[in-house]
């Protein structure tokens, strides 16, 4: 499975990748993006099965990237991972087609749940 991890912080990406490694039954191909624009470019290039997307990123934020990814591929599976836990942010990303909204830091149990859902 190809998984795109988008966050401007390398540490945040490492945390997600570590949990993915702890959960995986088979190997996943991990692609990393540092901002919203890069996320879209890499999505178009690799067509990943799943995207973990941060909201607060430079160049282009996660809200805009989510909209553009879903415009490009209405079946895109995007999980938003953010410390912004406002109801408005959660509602907006759900309206824009996010598969799930996860509060940072993502737990192993939640990761398992997400991976099960897309199998």
């Amino acid at each position: 499975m190809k998984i795109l991890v988008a966050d401007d912080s390398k540490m945040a990406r490492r945390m997600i990748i570590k949990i993915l490694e702890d959960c995986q039954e088979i190997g996943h191909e991990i692609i990393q993006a540092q901002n919203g624009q890069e996320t879209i470019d890499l999505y178009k290039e690799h067509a990943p099965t799943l995207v973990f997307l941060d909201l607060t990123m430079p160049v282009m934020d996660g809200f805009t990237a989510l909209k553009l990814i879903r415009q490009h591929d209405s079946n895109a599976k995007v999980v938003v991972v953010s410390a912004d836990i406002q109801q408005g942010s959660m509602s907006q990303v759900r309206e824009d087609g996010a598969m799930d909204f996860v509060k940072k830091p993502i737990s192993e149990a939640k990761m398992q749940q997400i991976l099960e859902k897309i199998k």
Partner: protein
Amino acid sequence: MENSAILNEDQQDCLQELINIAYGSGTAAISEILDAFATLSIPRINIIETRYLQDYLQSQVKVGMPQFLATQLINGKFSSENLFIIDQNSAENLARAFGLEETEIQDVNELSDVILEITNILSSSTISKFAQEMSIEVSFSPPHVKLLNSIEEMDSTFIDKYHQVIIISTILQFENQNIRGELLILTTDDTIEFIKKLLDKILDEL
């Protein structure tokens, strides 16, 4: 310089409680990452005028020690700017707690990245929880971080557009190592007036 000059006793008490709850949300996120070994002190909250900020930092932050200074703009009716200040020793301890290798810890870029993410989690979790309690919406700009040789090097020109600072000070203890960080919220008079009205509304409803 006193809080009472800005907020009355009830408003101060209400704000303290709301920030305690909000900051709990931020620190809980950090504790989750660090596992159960981390304990965070109850934050000490104070409001001062920005002109006293340098004096405050000189008295609280280790003078002459390199400091990471991270900033994040908060947009919306609670228009403000968050500052997270942490000395280099604490930053290195924090990076160790996050499992970075010693070679990575010696790399300022790696350390900066850790501080960037900690700022993002602390600031976004705290402010979004606070916004939720106040029934307002805010948005966040990406944080920026830089390493200063000493706190005296802080370029305070960007602070001039703000009038008050809400100081949230806490100590994180991890395996006998103290990690001290200061989260500061720079606000304008308009923002403080807006908060006062919301605090009064909350107090009226109690």
